[in-house]
């Protein structure tokens, strides 16, 4: 029961910590709350009227929600790039960053689940999907695999940092024998979640744009570029606004991870483009639509031609040590890389899968205001969750939050 008492005190302390802060912090949280409320209002309209309030149709049946879901699975998976060196390779200088990375993974996973639920036509019967209560089409449906791996990953990423923080909160050292097995498992699990999510699309013979063997590996490469890029940006913000110490060495090491992943991603992009455009077949039409437009329909052109140059520019800049070690350039690169991959692995991947349709019909997709509202709301939810987690974690790590300190 003493543990329960500690837990209760932890919850109380963390509530205390997250409701107190600077003016800027309060403004930030208020803004997030406002966006979340707007998102909830938009979602209530969607619940009431049905998915017809979105831009999706029978021709393009997945849109902004699934795009963001796909991208965020990658962000969540990227936490592993920090977990591995810290817990497994015993490279201690990542330890400060790893809690942040895991917090980011939790926030990203919550966003993923929220996007999936937002995309469902019948959220009231989602219990049909709960193993044991409903009918779970395992192992045939890749979606059931995804449900399992995402929730498992969420569990791992909540329990490991929670254990560590719980021990630190009591002023004790965390036991390696407890969390290292979990950390090692989560390394494999992270690769799993992203590969399974790629298989979700890769396994559809109906959509040649997705049905290629490179999709899974490319998902991993782009995820390990975009995820750590986001972590660098977040660490930069935390460094600026809190006393939490993050060494330059840590950021530089993560930057190295980003660079290598971005380079591999670029090589795979070249390979993909070569295959689609050197000897174009009937199956290359989606790629043509994405990059050049088809029959005058070219809604995605501005997006993809923003993403590709940003991607190339960031990768080239990061490749030079001198530029990468300049933090201003690094942050800029991370930002544009994140945007580029969000476009490319988001709707740059999902929407062209449906265009042209199975019989060549080209019907374009434009998200509606309500859809964008819900999407922004979910992103705000993620940012909110992350801020709460990070504030508590930083409080504990800095020694500000301690059991029975008062």
């Amino acid at each position, binding site marked *: 029961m003493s543990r329960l008492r500690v837990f209760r005190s932890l919850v109380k302390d963390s509530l205390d910590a997250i409701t107190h802060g600077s003016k800027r912090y309060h403004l930030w949280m208020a803004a997030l709350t406002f966006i979340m409320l707007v998102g909830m209002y938009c979602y209530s309209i969607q619940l009431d*009227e*049905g*998915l*017809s309030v*979105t831009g*999706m*149709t*029978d021709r393009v*049946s*997945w849109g902004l929600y699934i795009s963001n879901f796909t991208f965020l699975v990658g962000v969540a998976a990227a936490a592993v790039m920090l977990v591995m060196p810290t817990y497994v390779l015993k490279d201690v200088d990542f330890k400060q960053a790893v809690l942040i990375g895991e917090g980011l993974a939790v926030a990203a996973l919550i966003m993923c689940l929220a996007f*999936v639920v937002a*995309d*469902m*036509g*019948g959220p*009231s*019967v*989602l219990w*049909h*999907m709960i193993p*044991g*209560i*409903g*009918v*779970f*089409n395992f192992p*045939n*449906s*890749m*979606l*059931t695999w995804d*449900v399992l791996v995402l929730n498992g990953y969420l569990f791992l990423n909540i329990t490991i940092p929670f254990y560590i923080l719980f021990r630190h909160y009591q002023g004790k050292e965390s036991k390696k024998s407890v969390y290292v097995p979990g950390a090692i498992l989560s390394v494999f699990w992270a690769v799993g979640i992203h590969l399974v999510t790629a298989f*979700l*699309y890769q*396994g*559809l*013979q*109906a*959509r040649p744009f997705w049905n290629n063997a490179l999709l899974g590996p490319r998902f991993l490469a782009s995820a390990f570029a975009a995820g750590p890029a986001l972590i660098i940006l977040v660490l930069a913000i935390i460094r600026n606004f809190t006393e939490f110490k993050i060494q330059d060495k840590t950021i530089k090491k993560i930057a190295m991870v980003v660079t290598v992943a971005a380079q591999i991603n670029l090589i795979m992009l070249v390979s993909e483009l070569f295959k689609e455009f050197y000897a174009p077949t009937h199956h290359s*039409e989606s790629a043509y639509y994405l990059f050049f437009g088809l029959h005058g329909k070219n809604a995605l052109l501005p997006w993809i031609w923003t993403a590709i140059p940003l991607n190339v520019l960031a990768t080239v800049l990061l490749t030079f040590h001198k530029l990468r070690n300049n933090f201003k350039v690094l942050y800029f690169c991370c930002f544009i890389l994140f945007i580029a991959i969000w476009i490319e692995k988001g709707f740059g991947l999902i929407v062209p*899968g*449906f265009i*042209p*349709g*199975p*019989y*060549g*019909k080209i019907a374009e997709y434009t998200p509606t205001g309500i859809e964008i509202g819900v999407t922004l709301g979910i992103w705000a939810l993620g940012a909110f969750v992350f801020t709460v987690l990070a504030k508590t974690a930083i409080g504990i790590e800095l020694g500000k939050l301690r059991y029975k300190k008062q």
Partner: protein
Amino acid sequence: MSSNNKKWFSLNLGTKPKASNKSCSCGKTSGGCGGAHSEQQQLSDEEFAKAAINASIGEERVKDGFDQVFDVKMDRRSAFKKLTASLLIGAGAVSTSCSVISGDEAKEKAQIDWEEQFKGNYKLMTDKEKEATVNRLVRSYQLRTGKTISMSSKNAEEDVLFGYAFNISKCQGYMDCVNACVEENNQDRNSQMQYIRIHEMKDGNGFSFDEADDNYYHEVPAEGHFYMGTQCFHCDNPPCVNVCPVQATWREDDGLVVVDYDWCVGCRYCMAACPYDGRRFNWSKPEVPEAEVNHNQHYLGNRMRKKGVMEKCTFCVQRSRAGKNPACVEACPTGARIFGNLLDPNSTIRWVLENKKVFRLKEDLGTEPKFWYFMD
């Protein structure tokens, strides 16, 4: 469910047969080298299937709805937990159904809604449970609109496998099939949902779907064009069925690929998986004017759908299982559409398959559609 050996006429166009249990060491796939041996093999196959089903579904086969959910072995603690949770949820329903103010009908409606919300997957229901849910739905419709519908829960018949053939030479693009389909199957009128698409193709270009128009609005037949229709092809190896996370869509024993509208969660994965554009989604609440509702319904077919679920062509299950042709076949003024039992050697569809040069769309995908095209 279906045994591996195909019982119907099959065009072997290069798709490799699934491991046939019928072949034996002598290499023959039919007849058998030593009579009794193959017979015995057959029997053990059946036994094997039975055992496999028992092992995989086990108790669930005879249970449904609440039973699927609640009639499970559990220890006292989890039972207590579940009881508490369900008591909390149930309290709301009880307060509605026990309310003195609301009338008997409102209570009955609440009771039906409650039972419908928490019923099981139709695919796993026993015949009795199927009947019960159908009765509830009929009663619910009566309470809501005052009209009586007839709804069937007829299962697939033995030795029936439905197939469809489409004569490209005959189709003139009149779209009578499309209209008949919409009327028969109570499709949403607001969004103008149509299961059938008629593609208008230019003569001399062959089957170039990307240049075809599936949404034309002019006098037909247009000069220099020919027409062909597509709809759900009721594949024998349907990709949509595999991907469904909750088994809300499946292949019936008579070959129909159907959807349990009440079990579908609306994720639209099946829609992405279908290579033939055969599935439709209810993006908003489907509406059919009361006067136009077809009251002759089937649970898996044309009963009223709700918002946020998938639906599709069922070869008019309410008609085909009653021995009639689907509405599109009956409505076609040119006789371009042929429907029948592939296992009946005297059926028209068999005659077409045996005497015409038939082909199917996108056969390279291995989906094995039961929808053939041919020309005179």
